[in-house]
């Protein structure tokens, strides 16, 4: 190819005035994908889990905490649980605290509105109990999610005798959510960069992105399976995790045992 082969129009500057067009869908998709990916990246970036607590304890006590909250009939226990969670929240980063509180308050307000009609029939107890219970449950799960790495959480599932192959599938799923997410983010960026005028058939472009994503995920799944087979995968998989117990774990267990004792004590107190 020589310089002479370049068409004339490509050597001139374009005298172009773009028409207005709505790109809200693409921009919103980019924003929401970015927030999911940055959340996953931030979690992967944690060097250790919160205070270095063993993820198995975090998962066990979070589940237990949510169960105790659900079955509790004493308002004092629910308030104690909320105070404990807010105390735990103080140790997180400010941006995490903001995100967790936003979610928890959002869900709690929604619950409050849903339960509002019961108050009209004089049942104030439901609102007083269920709203703080929902707030505490959402906060507890979010603290776990924000402060513990994904691979630690999936690894902790082994404690509950969940099959290793299931944990492997979960790990691979999280990995592919990130990879395909980044791929689709690049596609949306490309669509935005190439949308220099009025796109009369936006649905076709978006369908094209969805189609390419489907083909890409299929190819990646086939490649992964082939790579696993090449590495000797025969359908069985064993996960090896070293069990560690630290001073932080001891403190965390003591705090949670106190919460369980509170549950028993306030439950009995109420019955008297």
């Amino acid at each position: 190819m020589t310089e002479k082969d370049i068409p004339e129009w490509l050597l001139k500057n374009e005298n172009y005035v773009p028409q207005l067009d709505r790109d809200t869908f693409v921009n919103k998709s980019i924003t929401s994908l970015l927030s999911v990916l940055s959340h996953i990246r931030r979690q992967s970036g944690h060097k250790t889990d919160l205070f270095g607590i063993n993820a198995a304890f975090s998962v066990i006590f979070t589940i237990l905490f949510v169960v105790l909250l659900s079955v509790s009939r004493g308002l004092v226990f629910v308030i104690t649980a909320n105070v404990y969670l807010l105390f735990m929240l103080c140790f997180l980063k400010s941006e995490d605290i903001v995100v967790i509180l936003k979610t928890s308050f959002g869900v709690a307000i929604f619950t409050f509105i849903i339960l509002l009609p019961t108050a009209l029939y004089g049942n104030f107890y439901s609102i007083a109990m269920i709203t703080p219970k929902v707030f505490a449950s959402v906060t507890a799960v979010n603290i776990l999610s924000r402060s513990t790495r994904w691979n630690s959480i999936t690894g902790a599932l082994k404690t509950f005798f969940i099959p290793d192959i299931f944990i492997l599938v979960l790990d691979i799923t999280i990995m592919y959510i990130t990879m395909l997410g980044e791929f689709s983010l690049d596609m949306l960026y490309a669509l935005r960069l190439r949308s220099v005028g009025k796109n009369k058939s936006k649905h076709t472009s978006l369908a094209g992105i969805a189609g390419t994503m489907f083909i890409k995920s299929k190819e990646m799944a086939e490649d992964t399976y082939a790579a696993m087979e090449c590495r000797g995968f025969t359908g069985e998989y064993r996960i090896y995790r070293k069990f560690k117990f630290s001073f932080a774990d001891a403190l965390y267990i003591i705090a949670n045992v106190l919460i369980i004792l509170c549950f028993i004590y306030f439950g009995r107190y109420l019955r008297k």
Partner: protein
Amino acid sequence: MIELTNVSYSYTDIPALNNISLNISKGESVTLMGPNGSGKSTLLKLVNGIITPDSGSYRFGGEEITKKKLHDNRFSKLFHQKIGFVFQNSQTQLFCPEVYDEIAFGPRQMGFIESEVEKRVKDCLNLLNIEALKNRQPYHLSEGEKRKVAIACVLSLNPEVLVLDEPLNGLDPRTQRWLVEFLINFNKGGKTLITSTHNLEFLQEISDRGILFDEDHCIAADMEMDKILEDIDLLKRVNLVDEYYHKHVGSKHSHFHLHNY
């Protein structure tokens, strides 16, 4: 044409660009070099308005590019028409059912009549020597073909600046040579060219000026390409060459080459 002043950018606490300042004039051909993760691709994203600086300023054609301005629909579209970006992974740029539609995507949006669109598509197909791919589905093409189609898509918009992220990666030697020739001639046609690479083989041919990034995400050198490639200590310091990389001196032809043993 492109002015960056004290630009810094980080991805959720991980720095990617650290106090970068540089100017690129109209018609220049510049290559960004540096090891993996040094910030080359981030800089290209910033230059294309995909991201905006955390601090510092970016001006294109004398006008400052800010998040607010990029949210202005008309400004954003005009800016993206003036600067074309070929992604490192060309597959992410292709989303139309056929190669023809892919190349026609831009001109159709710009409001050209169908005969003009057809002319542009035909010219781009000829220029990149991919007429045979006209009715093929983009996702079934080889890497080299996808790269050519992605370049054709961007060229059909007739941008003033062409930005290519690692354009030679994953291409066979013949396609690499073809692409190098194409970029040289494209630049000779008066267009501004910005490429990024850590492949030193074709740099002298593509660009007169090199901008070298180090592992601290700063600019370690900004000078003529020949001078950069002669400064082996500098290249070693930024992990672009190892001790086996050298140049034959005194022979009729001088070239860098890699030892396989």
